[in-house]
């Protein structure tokens, strides 16, 4: 199939949109589940009911989030067959078991204990309830483990052989699971989930602090979120840099696209840091480039004059769409630095004892509410667009991965999915906003508080 075939492009757009929605929900679930676990632990430990109030406040939002996440994840599990049948046939033996383990290990753990976590505190008592919360939190992390392992294998395949009919055959499961890019991607993504959640929670806390600086529950939200921003924010920058080095080693054309590096600089000049440019795929060069010399070498090669393999050293049919990768990367890094900066600023403000009265910081955090998730989406655009034109990197082209389905089907499903997602996520977002702007009160009710009373003998 021609790489610019419309059926292929629509199928790709459909996958990109469905996974884009899903990944935000999945990451928010990971972050919230672990946040809730911390809250319940603090409640049990300090016996301060305010923690339980914050727990219940976010539990309502968690319930919505998981429900939508389950069904949007279901779509993903089937899209590999409806739209990417040839990839499934060829790579199913390798990525299939990883995805299967995700369901067996993670999804069931989450779903099995979710009911108790949401509605069961009165029925099972605090200890067993805390156990359920931990099971859900652990399940969410396991799910990140398996799905990122499968995703990473597509980026950096290892531990396989290729059969005569072109199928990938597993040879060594440990090599497959712990493929070269997996540890970096896992850490980077889990940090992203924590940061994204921290800024949502922090923004909600800040919003209520701006209205009532004495609200103890809003203080807990804001304070915990700022701790995460201060600790995970800078760590994420390091993790991202290490992930970049891994990409340089295994997916050099992706890294060249991230850097917008068309030509290798003459010896001794080193790689510049391009702050801005408009990459031109036709002419294979950048327009309006603004760059600082040598800085690129510094963070890519950790010296003054090192260079990387440039885009022009690859065949034109093997490089990704450079402008998308280039801009998404800058957006992600910019937001990453901003978030880390806010985290560090909060430390200073906290040290001076102004955390709950620093209105400027609270206003900034409210504006930054979606920053973590936007940065995360940009990061996924970098990595997924950056691995084009391949699905299994270097081995199977995207154009050879799709299902034998006609344009009319793919187009119709694409439009229906967009309509349904906009409606469902739109309504969900309204409910989410409504829940967040409601003041976190003393004796906050959880989701469906009557359910436990009305069920049972």
């Amino acid at each position, binding site marked *: 199939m021609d790489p610019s075939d419309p059926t292929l492009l629509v199928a790709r757009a459909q996958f990109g949109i469905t996974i884009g929605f899903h990944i935000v929900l999945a990451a928010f679930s990971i972050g919230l589940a672990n946040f809730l676990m911390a809250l319940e632990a603090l409640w049990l430990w300090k016996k301060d009911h305010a923690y339980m109030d914050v727990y219940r406040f976010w539990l309502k939002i968690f319930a919505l989030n998981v429900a939508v996440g389950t069904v949007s*994840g279901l779509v993903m599990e089937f899209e590999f067959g409806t739209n990417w049948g040839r990839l499934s046939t060829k790579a199913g033996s390798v990525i299939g078991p990883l995805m*299967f383990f995700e369901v*067996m290990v993670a999804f069931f753990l989450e779903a099995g204990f979710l009911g*108790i976590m949401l509605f069961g505190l009165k029925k099972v008592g605090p200890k067993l309830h805390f156990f359920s919360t931990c099971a859900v939190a652990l399940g969410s992390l396991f799910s990140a483990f398996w799905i990122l392992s499968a995703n990473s294998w597509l980026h950096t395949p290892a531990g396989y052989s290729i059969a005569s009919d072109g199928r990938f055959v597993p040879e060594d499961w440990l090599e497959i699971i712990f493929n070269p890019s997996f540890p970096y991607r896992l850490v980077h993504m889990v940090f992203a989930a924590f940061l994204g959640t921290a800024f949502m929670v922090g923004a909600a806390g800040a919003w209520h602090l701006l209205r009532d600086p004495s609200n103890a529950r809003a203080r807990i939200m804001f304070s915990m979120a700022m701790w995460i921003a201060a600790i995970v924010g800078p760590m994420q920058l390091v993790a991202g840099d290490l992930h970049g080095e891994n990409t340089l080693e295994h997916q050099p054309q992706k890294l060249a696209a991230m850097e917008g590096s068309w030509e290798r600089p003459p010896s001794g000049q080193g790689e510049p840091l391009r702050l801005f440019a408009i990459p031109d795929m036709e002419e294979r060069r950048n327009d309006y480039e603004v760059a600082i010399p040598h800085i690129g070498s510094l963070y890519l090669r950790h010296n003054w004059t090192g260079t990387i393999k440039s885009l022009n050293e690859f065949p034109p049919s093997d490089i990704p769409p450079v402008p998308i990768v280039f801009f998404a990367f800058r957006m992600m890094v910019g937001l990453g630095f901003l978030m880390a900066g806010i985290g560090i600023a909060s430390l200073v403000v906290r040290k001076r004892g102004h955390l709950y009265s620093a209105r400027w910081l609270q206003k900034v955090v409210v504006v930054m509410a979606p920053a973590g998730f936007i940065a995360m989406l940009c990061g996924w655009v970098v990595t997924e667009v950056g691995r084009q034109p391949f699905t299994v990197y270097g081995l199977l082209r995207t154009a050879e991965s799709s299902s034998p389905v006609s344009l009319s089907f793919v187009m119709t499903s694409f439009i229906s999915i967009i309509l349904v997602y906009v409606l469902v996520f739109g309504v969900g977002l309204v409910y989410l906003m409504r829940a967040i702007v409601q003041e976190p009160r003393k004796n906050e009710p959880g989701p469906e508080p009557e359910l436990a009373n009305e069920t049972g003998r």
Partner: protein
Amino acid sequence: MPLFDELIPLLSAGALAFSILTYVILDGTDLGVGILFAVNRKARHRHVMAFSILPIWDGNETWLVLGGGGLLAMFPAAYSIFLSAMYAPIILMLLALIFRGVSLEFRDRAKTERRQRLHDVAFMSGSIVASFCQGVVLGGLIQGIPHAEGQYSGNGWDWLSGFSVFCGLVLVVGYALLGACWLYWRTEDALQARSCRQARLLAVLTVVLLAGVVAWTFRLNTVYEERWLNPLIGIPFVALLIVLMAVFWRAFAWKYHFLPLFAVLGWFATAYAAMVVALYPLIIPPALTLAEAASAPLSQMLILAGFAVLIPATLAYSTFGFWVFRGKIRAKD
């Protein structure tokens, strides 16, 4: 080890069949509750119906994810052919499942009664459409899918036939029956009495329609007919069904309110087993066998090992999750 080579795909097929059956009986029940929203219109009844499945529907639906993941992992060629062939009904089913799951979760957040009714309509129609689509793809599978060289080779519409549409209708009725039996177990007073009447009516309808499916299947393919008319296969199935029907009919008189549901779950399991027996050794008629569609032995072995260890644990804690919310649901005024 030729025996070993045959055994592994067979065990994998067993694991997959188990996952799908578990999905059908678990989510079939809560889809059925959704379908019954069409005939149970009292706000209090609907409130109880929603509460009866709210803590568990998410876990039930996870078995469908397991089925999808299992098909990909253990029989990738079948996954690819089946889903490409069923493109339209599968996408429709997924969208319907989104609608119903989300509207169930959102229904108590609706501020006005009118909006809540809107959520209920979405929940009900989502449940009906998802059930119907599941029946259609089942019928589409039984009637056979054109395929060549490990890829689907049809035009995208060959799933659509009188037979597959009929299967869709049968499954909607069957799921509604499961839902009615579930409500008979979990509710009391007026709603329970109502569910009892509905269950009996739906049971008669299901038996008649199921007989219709069997007769239609005979005309469709002589292989199925031969297999089922083999007395060693046919007689045990029919005997089992008759016993289970008798149990169902007597069950409403007994004090154990879960009995009708379990009897009907038995019907479903029996009918499902009969279908699997008719298809064997094919995974996708008319030609793709389990062995041909199988993933690499190393993949299947990893999965089977995980399945043997993890699924019993999963069943144990999922049962606990049901157990916590056991008992009758009483709406407080």
